[in-house]
C-alpha cells in the first residue's frame, strides 16, 4: 500500500539510513482511520530484534490499534482504512501479495483476557502445529513440551496435559496462550495488556517470562501500567490522541522525557 505523502522517498530514506541494523519492524508514515475518523496519525516507529518495546498512553490513544496493525488484525473490520507502510524484516506486510496467514504465524499475539480454547492443555498448544501439518505424535509431543517450557508453564502442567485448559488459573491460562503463540515459532510477539487481569504474583511471573523471551523474540507490549512498562521494556513509546508523542530508551523516557505531554502523563499531571 503506497504511503500518502508528498515526499515519501526522501523522508523514508533518511529514516532508514539512521536505523540500527537489528530493526525487525519498521512502521513508516502509518495512518489509520475508522469510519473516516483518524485514529492513528503519521506513526513512525522501529522495533529492534531481541528488545522489548512498550506502548503506553491514555485509553483510546490508539496503542492497541497500532499493535493490531502489525499482524493486520484491523483488516477484519472493513470500516478501518490503513495507509503507510509496515515492514516486517523488510517486507511490506500490506502489499497485495502478502499472505496474512503466514504473517500471523510470524507475528504472534496475546490478548488482555487469556483465551484458551475449550480443549485440553496439550491440544491448545498443538492447535497451530496441527494446522501447519505437524502430525506425528512424537513431533507434537516434543514441540508442545518445548513451547510450554519456553512459556514457563511446563513444570506446573506436565502431569495434567490432558485436562481442560479452562481449569488453569488466570495467570497459567495467560502463559498457556503464550505457549500456544510460541508453538508456531513466531519472530515477533504482540502482547496487548497481557497482565491487566493478573494478580501481582502472576504478573511478576509474566514479566519474568517476557524478560526470558526477549532473548529469542522481538516483543511489543501495550500496557496501562506504567511501572510495568518501566520494568519490562527496553524502549517506550508514548502515544496520545493517535499520535506517537515520544519514543526513547525506557530509562530516558522515565527520567528525562523530552516532551511536556509525556512528562505530564507519566507524572500524573493534568494535560
Amino acid at each position: 500500500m503506497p504511503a500518502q505523502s508528498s515526499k515519501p522517498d526522501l523522508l523514508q530514506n533518511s529514516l532508514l539510513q539512521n536505523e540500527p541494523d537489528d530493526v525487525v519492524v519498521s512502521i513508516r508514515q502509518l495512518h489509520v482511520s475508522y469510519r473516516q475518523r483518524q485514529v492513528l496519525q503519521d506513526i513512525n516507529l522501529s522495533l529492534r530484534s531481541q528488545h522489548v518495546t512498550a506502548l503506553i498512553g491514555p485509553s483510546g490513544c490508539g496503542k492497541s490499534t497500532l499493535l493490531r496493525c502489525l499482524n493486520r488484525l484491523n483488516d477484519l473490520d472493513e470500516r478501518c482504512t490503513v495507509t503507510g507502510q509496515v515492514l516486517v524484516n523488510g517486507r511490506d506486510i500490506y502489499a497485495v501479495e502478502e499472505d496474512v496467514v503466514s504473517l500471523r504465524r510470524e507475528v504472534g499475539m496475546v490478548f488482555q483476557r487469556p483465551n484458551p480454547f475449550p480443549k485440553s492443555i496439550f491440544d491448545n498448544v498443538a492447535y497451530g502445529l496441527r494446522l501447519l501439518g505437524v502430525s506425528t505424535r512424537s513431533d507434537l509431543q516434543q514441540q508442545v513440551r518445548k513451547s510450554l517450557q519456553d512459556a514457563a508453564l511446563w513444570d506446573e502442567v506436565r502431569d495434567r496435559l490432558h485436562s481442560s485448559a479452562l481449569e488453569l488459573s488466570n495467570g497459567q491460562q495467560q502463559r498457556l496462550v503464550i505457549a500456544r503463540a510460541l508453538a508456531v515459532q513466531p519472530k515477533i510477539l504482540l502482547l496487548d495488556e497481557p497482565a491487566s487481569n493478573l494478580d501481582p504474583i502472576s504478573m511478576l511471573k509474566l514479566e519474568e517470562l517476557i524478560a526470558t523471551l526477549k532473548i529469542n523474540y522481538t516483543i511489543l507490549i501495550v500496557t496501562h501500567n506504567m511501572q510495568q512498562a518501566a520494568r519490562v521494556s527496553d524502549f517506550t513509546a508514548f502515544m496520545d490522541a493517535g499520535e506517537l508523542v515520544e519514543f526513547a530508551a525506557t530509562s530516558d523516557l522515565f527520567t528525562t522525557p523530552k516532551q511536556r505531554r509525556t512528562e505530564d502523563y507519566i507524572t500524573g499531571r493534568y494535560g
Partner: protein
Amino acid sequence: MQNRHSQHISREFNDELETIRSQVLRMGGLLETQLDKAILAMLDNDAVLAAEVKHGDAEINQMEMEIDAACIDVVARRQPAASDLRFIIGVFKTIAELERMGDESKRVAKMSAAERASVLPVEINTELRHMGELVQNMLHDVLDAFARMDASAAVAVAQSDERVDDKYELISTAAMRCMVEDSASVSAAMSLMWAARSLERIGDRCQNVAENVIYLVLGRDVRHLPLDGLLEPSG
C-alpha cells in the same frame, strides 16, 4: 516555578512534594544561620557563639533524617517518575550535602582567632573574612536557585566556586610562609588553614548542590564537566 507540583491529579502527592521542598528550604535556612554564626565565632573568637553552633547542628542532622524518611516514603508509595523522580533524587543528594556543610560549619566555629591574631599578619584574617563572605553568598544563592528551580542561577553558583578555591590557595600559601618564617606561628597557621579548608569544602558542597539543581531542573548530569560547558543548551 514555585507551584510546579500544583498540577498533580493527586493532591496528596502534591502536598507531599511541597512539604519536602519547604523542609529542604528550612534546613537550608538553618544551615545559613549556622554558617553565619560559625564565621562570626571564628573571626571574633566568640566561644558562646561557637557553642551555639555546636548545639545547633543537631537540628540540621534531625532534619536530614526527617526529609530522608519523607523521600523514602514517596518512592515507596508513589513511584515518582520524570521530574518528580529527579526532584526526589536531587533532594536526597542535596540534604546529604547540607548536613555535611553543617559539620564543616561546626569545625569553622571551633577555630580560635585569639592566638592567630597575635602571631599572624592582619591581612590573612582579612582574606579569611572575604573567603567566608564568598562562601556565605554561594550558600545563599544555591538555596535560592533550589527554591526557584533556576538552573542558570545554579550554573552561576557552580562557577563562583573557583573564586573560593583561589582564596583558599592564597590563604594556605600565606599560612605556610608564616610557618616557614616563624616556628612560633605553626599552631596558629595550622588552625587558620583548617578553617580555610572547611570553608573551601563548604564551597565545593555548594557547587555539588548547584549540580543537583541543574539535574533536577534540566535532567542533565553536569558533574565533572568543564564549567564553560554548563551554559550550553543540552544536545
